[in-house]
């Protein structure tokens, strides 16, 4: 049931100057980060987290989710105008988008991508407003055992974040869990793996680690690129773009509405599935768009509905991924894992409390996400051409500025120089593991979920001891049994998702 009272409270909470500025900054910043090839939404969100420290939770989280959705959209700008997908989620967009640019219809394709992204994102935000409270209310029935199983469920995503090597990805995730164990043990108070350093007794701070893993390692890659002659992207036929219209004629735009509607639904559902994400969603929607298209032969040669389908799909997946994140603490993608860390930093623990104690904040964030998508559409329609230019900025200027931002951002968290050292060390570590084929997102997920999993497990053991043993305790908890089944299904879902993704790509190439 729709909780109008909390929606109004959330809306009122959103209407402060701080939140409005955060919303605009997150949206524009996300579009710029997304448009920069090599810079991902994950990097943008991780760089932004320290800046949000001094903000209220609602302004901070609104800024982060705005950055998330608009970075996914921003990737399409350079995919269409420069044939360089800004993020992996816009790889499918480049196929038809760039063909349209070559045909002199780049701005129209950009307009369709903007419109489709905004509609897909807005649809997923509405779905979140409708589904999340019900799921949140259900989580009231959870005890420590269910929370332990939920964190295990979250960890099953690791295989899907693993990158090229599943084994190395799992190793990375398990190592993240070990890193999460560093510090004083929550139950016995014994220091673990602190190497005698008093600063490590609080544990390894998650934000410096992720800034190092994502941003400093990326600066190191940029330096290598500069020395190997890699330059910024070039906008194709820029003179012609200035003259062309921002959207196709209404008659043509109208034909895209069914595709956009279908992909909004599918994209949101795919986003909810833990093993999927914006990238998988865009390929599935692109493949589906081709199947339903009246002119499938145009796909790959400049189909406007090709652009609409994948752009709707990837942005709809962002809202979808936020639903299990907010309600159950289950991150569906690497960015969602980082957002989970951001939520915890601001004292928001996913679950039932998000819809009781922090209801106005939660609704404010969800409405903020909805507004971010609308704002992204409006700004995108008028400014996409100018935003595309950032992709041409030489990497030699960007790298040092990002380094300086990493240092100040990390220091600002707790005004602590040790954190900066941790960030620098994780930068080198991130670069080396990337070179060796280990993905960083599973490690982050492991670090975030480690304490939740361990503490709830040990509490569950204590509780089970008082109730006649773990097995009998487990068997009296039907939700735990369902969650165990979900864990088993989720373990196999990456195989299914890889198959679906592969099939979608095959359908595209045929």
């Amino acid at each position, binding site marked *: 049931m729709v909780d109008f009272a909390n929606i109004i409270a959330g809306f009122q909470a959103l209407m402060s100057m701080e939140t409005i500025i955060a919303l605009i900054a997150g949206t524009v910043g996300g579009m710029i980060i997304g448009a920069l090839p090599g810079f991902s939404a994950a990097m943008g969100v991780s760089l932004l987290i320290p800046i949000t420290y001094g903000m209220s939770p609602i302004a901070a989280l609104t800024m982060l989710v705005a950055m998330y959705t608009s970075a996914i959209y921003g990737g399409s700008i350079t995919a269409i105008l420069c044939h360089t997908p800004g993020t992996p989620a816009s790889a499918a967009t480049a196929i038809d988008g760039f063909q349209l640019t070559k045909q002199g219809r780049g701005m129209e394709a950009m307009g369709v991508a903007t419109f489709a992204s905004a509609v897909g994102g807005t649809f997923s935000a509405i779905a979140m407003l409708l589904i999340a409270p019900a799921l949140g209310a259900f989580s009231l029935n959870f005890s420590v055992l269910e929370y332990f199983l939920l964190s295990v469920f979250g960890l099953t995503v690791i295989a899907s974040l693993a990158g090229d090597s599943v084994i190395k990805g799992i190793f990375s995730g398990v190592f993240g869990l070990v890193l999460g164990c560093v510090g004083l043990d929550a139950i016995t108070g014994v220091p673990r793996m602190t190497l005698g350093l008093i600063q490590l007794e609080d544990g390894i701070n998650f934000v410096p680690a992720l800034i190092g893993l994502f941003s400093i390692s990326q600066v190191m890659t940029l330096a290598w690129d500069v020395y190997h002659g890699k330059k910024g992207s070039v906008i194709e036929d820029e003179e012609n773009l200035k003259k062309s219209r921002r959207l196709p004629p209404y008659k043509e735009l109208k034909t895209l509405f069914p595709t956009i509607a279908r992909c909004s639904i599918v994209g949101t559902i795919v986003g909810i599935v833990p093993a999927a994400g914006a990238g998988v969603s865009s390929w599935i929607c692109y493949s589906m768009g081709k199947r339903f298209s009246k002119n499938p032969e145009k796909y790959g040669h400049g189909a406007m509905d090709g652009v609409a389908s994948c752009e709707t799909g990837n942005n709809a997946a962002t809202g979808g991924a936020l639903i299990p994140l907010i309600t159950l603490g289950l991150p569906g993608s690497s960015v969602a894992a980082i957002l989970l860390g951001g939520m915890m930093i601001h004292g928001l623990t996913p679950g039932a409390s998000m819809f009781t104690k922090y209801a106005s904040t939660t609704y404010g964030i969800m409405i903020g996400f909805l507004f971010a998508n609308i704002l992204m559409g409006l700004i995108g329609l008028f400014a996409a051409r100018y935003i595309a230019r950032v992709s041409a900025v030489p990497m*030699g200027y960007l790298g040092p500025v990002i380094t300086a931002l990493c240092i*100040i951002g990390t220091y600002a968290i707790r005004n602590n120089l040790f954190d900066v050292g941790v960030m620098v060390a994780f930068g080198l570590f991130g670069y080396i593991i990337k070179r060796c084929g280990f993905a960083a997102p599973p490690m982050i997920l492991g670090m975030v979920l480690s304490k939740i999993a361990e503490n709830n497990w040990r509490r569950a053991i204590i509780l089970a001891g008082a109730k006649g043993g773990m097995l009998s305790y487990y068997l009296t908890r039907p939700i735990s049994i369902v969650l165990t089944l979900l864990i088993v299904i989720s373990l196999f879902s990456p195989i299914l998702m890889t198959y679906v993704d592969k099939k979608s790509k095959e359908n595209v190439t045929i």
Partner: protein
Amino acid sequence: MKKQLHQDVYIGFVCLALSLMIFVLNNNLPSDAAIMPRLLGGMMMVLSLIIIGHGLQKSKLPIESQGAKALSVDAMKIPLITWGMVVLYYILFAAIGYILSTGIMIVVLMRFMKSTSWFVVITIDIIYLLLVYFVFARMLNVPIDGFGMLSQLL
């Protein structure tokens, strides 16, 4: 056909050493506190052995089919120099504060990353420092220069 051990074999051994280190670090802990790290250490050990196994399988391939080396001099030289500069920047930051150290680092790193126009480099440096000072020092009250040897001397 020339053959050599695939890099994953070496990577696997490093992972194995890391797993053993986790066991050693948790050796003297009470069993309650040690169970999770030891369990994870065990999992890492198994995964390391699988990585080594995969590496040995890949070693059967000819060298040309084994792919580029992950940690070759070419892949590491420039990134390591860049990281070295970041470390120096960190040391300078601790010693002389953020504004001065950043002013120096941006110029040095931009020049290192082949940004040739002095005018653009200096302009970006100044604009960045002004923005950061306004946002972090003024708005967020982050004490970006109130520490280090320089502040003690002053």
